[in-house]
């Protein structure tokens, strides 16, 4: 089956920042994304988990975005300022997609 090169950008970010991130992406013309829940995690700012969290609902989510490679820089430039001051992780990896016209 014919596949096409694309980029998979995954941003792990605080839930309260989610709508700000997706709004920023939309303003940059990137409308396809999915948000996945994160249950627990650890990092430089310590460990947390949804169950034991002092204030639930303040956990993190993973925003997943499949885009065509030429849009990557645009996405990163728009997403980065929002994430910069906040805790979280941005990763980019290669992938292949079917139906490339969608991305």
């Amino acid at each position, binding site marked *: 089956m014919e596949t096409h090169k694309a980029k998979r950008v995954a941003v792990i970010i*605080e839930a*309260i*920042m989610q*709508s*700000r991130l997706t709004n920023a992406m939309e303003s940059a013309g990137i409308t396809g994304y999915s948000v996945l829940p994160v249950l627990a995690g650890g990092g430089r700012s*310590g*460990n947390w988990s*949804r*169950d*034991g*969290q*002092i*204030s*639930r*609902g*303040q956990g993190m989510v993973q925003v997943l975005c499949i885009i065509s490679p030429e849009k990557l820089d645009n996405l990163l430039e728009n997403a980065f300022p929002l994430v910069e*001051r*906040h*805790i979280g992780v941005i990763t980019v990896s290669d992938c292949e997609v079917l139906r490339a016209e969608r991305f």
Partner: protein
Amino acid sequence: MDGMLALAADNLLSPIILFFVLGVMAAFARSDLSIPEAIAKGMSIYLLFAIGFKGGAAVADNGIDATLLLSLVAGLVLSFALPLVAFMLLRAMTRLSVVDAAAVAGHYGSISIVTFVAATSVVQSAGLTSEGYMVAVAAVMEAPAILSALWLIARFSKGTTKMDAGLLREILLNGSIVLLIGSFLIGVITGTDGLTMIAPFIVTPFQGVLCLFLLDMGLVAGRGLREARGVLKPGLFLFGVLMPVIGSMFGLLAGSLLELSTGGIVLFMTLAASASYIAVPAAMRVALPEANPSIYLTLSLGVTFPFNLTLGIPLYLAVATLVTGG
């Protein structure tokens, strides 16, 4: 004095407090006991729905009190002002940075609705009544303190904060404010008839749900304390028990000037004494990501909340009784 000790002892041995203690102990012992997030959120929706509606129905029953509006204004003023007091205290008593101190201060101007609910239940057990509109006062006190915290940063630090329009809307239309005010208004509109209709849901089982909810609060507070031991320097801890007492004095002043009932004064003192652990932390994460969340969360939920629940509320009740003479 004796009476007050008896009161405190009574309070300490109520199921509500004991379930909170159970939660803290389970967390310290690292038990895997936990209440699912959805259930905890469901219970907090239940509590807001119930106290909002009951407050509204009480107002419908008693007629609009002339002091309602003044009480709201007093609540607003306190919420704006208390962070300034807290900030000065923190700068004097602790070595927190301006950013951290301002963030903590914001929490103490706002309120904790569960502390308020627990106080309502103590007021009731003491055979006192209170103004139904105190739940509306609670609602208006949630947000202003956040603005004070951001103003403190703008004033005393070079750091910038991100107070965008989105954030302001989020703060003012915060789910718990909307539910509390909404239920209050519906209570006012439907009055005693409405209350009779849903009393078997919001009145009779209320205390039981509150026990389970405080079990969860205990678990969460205990886990927070266990993780954040390092943060709790003596000065900070002291602030966590001193500030609510100071806050309560402002509440006493306001309540007395407004000539509220004794029960109403206790509630006002409790509101002023309590610290937010949901609305304000969320706003701080957005506007002030540099502030360390484990400081403000540990203080508010790990120190001030248990203090108010166990010792604070009986103290405020005793003081209010003393001052109003009944």
